[in-house]
């Protein structure tokens, strides 16, 4: 048997109070695309961060082509032939796309000046494989999340590395972008690169990987040949139990809770009208950039509407700030968790309580006992892991941060919940929990809007779906008419429909 390209040997990593990895060992051959699967907090990112020199292991070693390597910092890792796409976008918004891609090892002229043109040309080449429309000279901050993620991928491709580690590279990407990425990855593998691919989207992993290594609570529970096992089997290895396949159940009543008429923003949303019922889950589908996030922000009071009116329970309300919206019973679980969701240095409990401080402080002083009790209760409900309510939220995995944000609105007694991509970066187990949670909320009489680019998610959850296109509601589909083709047909602007048809099962966005 040939020497594996990449070998982890007994890797352990301890953080204060948490053992993130224990004795992780497995190897990846040259030209292999290895899936790395596990629930939130299983330790996938930690392992890859060790591989890319960001963390140092507490014990164990990494071997490349059979030789132990010291990966003390990102530069050493790069020198050893490792390129990595990080889960959290690691970019400098003030610099241009090309500058970001060459950051840390710029191309120079005469060893003094940055060869800007040359960088932009090479960046454009690398980007072309996935999204040729990204302008390498544009400031990175002006790009949308999805485009930024593509830049991050393209950056890793520049390095001509022997090992490419991808930590949820597609969390913001559309299926068509994923298709192109899949081709790129296959190309890498043909060239003998070892690829480690982390994703919570099992269909992607099944689509491009030969084998997958599955982790749970910091240990490897096994490596499987994906051709031999079912998704269900993999999932049960990940979560340690069988996940029941749940069916959609509707709790919608006829009582109109929220009524939106002619809502528009100055920029992206035009004349949106719809009704939301008590106990209803309303899905919003559409292409990336169709204005869904913007619509939710209007409803959450985060942006100001330029016209239109909103009624709750028949009473017109003004949504001039998130405070107003919250008072009216509306809460937003935002799309970009790190930027808009969490206060990194504060604990889980405090992050949870932020929107309902008034409730916890009826006489001016915060009742910490009550706050702790409610936090414990809500966090148990969302199954926070590890269950450390006083730990700063920044030390939790993305999925668990998301749970805390959902808990925030549960604690605030919100009646209308707006979810923007609620399961982005969230594992199958937690995803099922969140779906379940959303249903429970609906059953309790909450009204829910879910924006999602994953059509199966929309179909799984929604009683009714609005399809948005270019800032307007292109169609409203009832449960009976819900299927991916129907949504796609309305979401994609007519001229592109032809091209869009080609994309089979998940032709979503």
């Amino acid at each position: 048997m040939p020497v594996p390209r990449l070998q982890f040997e007994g890797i352990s990593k301890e953080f204060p109070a948490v053992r993130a990895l224990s004795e992780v060992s497995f190897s990846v051959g040259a030209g292999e695309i290895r899936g790395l699967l596990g629930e939130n907090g299983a330790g996938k990112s930690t392992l890859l961060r060790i591989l890319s020199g960001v963390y140092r292991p507490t014990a164990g070693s990494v071997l490349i082509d059979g030789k132990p390597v010291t990966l003390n910092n990102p530069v050493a890792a790069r020198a050893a032939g490792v390129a990595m796409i990080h889960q959290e976008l690691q970019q400098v918004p003030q610099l241009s796309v090309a500058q970001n891609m060459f950051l840390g090892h710029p191309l120079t002229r005469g060893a003094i000046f940055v060869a800007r043109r040359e960088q932009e040309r090479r960046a454009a080449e690398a980007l072309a494989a996935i999204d040729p429309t990204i302008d390498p000279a544009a400031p990175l901050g002006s790009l949308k999340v999805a485009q930024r993620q593509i830049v991050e991928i393209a950056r890793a491709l520049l390095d001509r590395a022997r090992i490419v580690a991808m930590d949820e590279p597609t969390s913001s990407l559309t299926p068509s972008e994923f298709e192109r990425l899949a081709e790129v990855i296959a190309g890498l593998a043909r060239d003998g690169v070892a690829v480690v691919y982390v994703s919570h989207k099992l269909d992607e992993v099944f689509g491009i990987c030969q084998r997958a290594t599955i982790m749970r609570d910091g240990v490897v529970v096994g490596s499987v040949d994906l051709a031999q096992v079912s998704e269900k089997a993999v999932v049960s290895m990940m979560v340690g139990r069988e996940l029941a396949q749940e069916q959609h159940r509707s709790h919608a009543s006829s009582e109109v809770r929220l009524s939106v008429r002619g809502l528009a923003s100055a920029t992206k949303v035009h004349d949106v009208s719809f009704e939301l019922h008590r106990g209803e889950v309303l899905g919003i589908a559409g292409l990336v950039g169709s204005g869904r996030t913007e619509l939710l922000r209007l409803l959450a009071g985060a942006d100001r509407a330029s016209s239109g009116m909103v009624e709750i329970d028949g009473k017109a309300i003004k949504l001039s700030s998130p405070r107003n919206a919250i008072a009216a019973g509306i809460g937003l679980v935002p799309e970009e968790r790190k930027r808009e969701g969490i206060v990194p240095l504060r604990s889980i409990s405090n992050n949870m309580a932020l929107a309902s401080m008034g409730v916890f402080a009826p006489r001016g002083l915060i009742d910490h006992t009550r706050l702790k009790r409610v936090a414990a209760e809500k966090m148990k409900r969302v199954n926070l892991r590890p269950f450390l309510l006083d730990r700063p939220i920044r030390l939790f995995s993305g999925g668990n941060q998301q749970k805390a944000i959902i808990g925030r609105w549960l604690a605030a007694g919100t009646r209308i919940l707006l979810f923007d991509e609620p399961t982005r970066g969230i594992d199958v187990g937690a995803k099922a929990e969140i779906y379940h949670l959303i249903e429970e909320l609906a059953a309790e009489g909450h009204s829910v809007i879910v924006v999602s680019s994953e059509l199966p998610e929309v179909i799984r959850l929604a009683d009714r779906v609005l399809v948005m296109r270019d800032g307007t509601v292109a169609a409203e589909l009832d449960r009976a008419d819900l299927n991916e083709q129907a949504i796609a047909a309305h979401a994609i602007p007519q001229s592109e429909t032809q091209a869009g048809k080609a994309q089979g099962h998940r032709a979503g966005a």
Partner: protein
Amino acid sequence: MTDITEHTAARPMAEFLHRFSVRDAGTLIGLVVILAVFGALVPGFFAERNLINILQQSSINACLALGMTLVIISGGIDLSVGPTAALSAVISASMLVAGVPFPLAIAAGFAIGLVCGLLNGVLVAYVGLQPFIVTLGTLSTYRALALIYTGGNPVLGLPAGFRAIFNGSLFGLPLAVIIVAVVALIAWIILKKTPFGEYLLAVGGNEEAAYIAGVPIARTKIAAYMISGLLAALAAQILIGRLGAAEPILGNLWELDAIAAAAIGGASLMGGKGSVVGTILGAVILGTMRNGLTLMNVQSFYQLLATGLIILAAMLIDRVTRGRG
């Protein structure tokens, strides 16, 4: 299951850390080291009288530093505390000299502090200017107003009754020290126990997220600057009570001492972090140092050197006790 036992075991420890953080312990160690050094070098350093002196001499800076801490936690900075104090002082004082009843004159002084803070806060929160540069601008502006108002002259002859308010003693402790201790307690309660404290930490920690969570960003910031202004006015009252006169140039460079105290105490100028206990310890460290150096009769150039080095040393000690990151 294991999760639950684990976390209940971890609870009391976490609770304790919550109340007296590692960071504050680091600052405390810094203070103890400095006290020990001076105690060894200066005879009579630990005399009760001298210790009270240190507290009294630290009280004004502590008062300002508490306000500064709140502003810093909210992600801002207030360079205008000295001139705010001066403006408040000269206006209160001239009312007192004109025979206005004490409560009214004091209230006027506090009102000035609040208005100065309000202006800073509005420029930062509503207009969206950088706090450093806003308060750099008002630093000059408020000072100029104080000078113009008095024509540059001190306001002398404050009534003895007024001076007694801020200048007395209670249980052997100077009133100024007691007042500042009460202020510190209130600040601690605000930060740890009230929604406003939580809002400050959230706004400084991640403004965008705080906004989405319904935190009243602008009001929180403005309130922080107003508290800072109010405490500057309080410091001014204490000082003019002590001095018996109010000068328009009072409060020169106060901002640097206040920032130093807050920073030594663990406030991060990036926002979202800071501690009332730490700030008080920071102010006492600075006060102790001055007192000790004077008692050792260190020449002023070397005192300046020592001031610089001790600020650096305090930060280093803190860094070491707390570990990296």
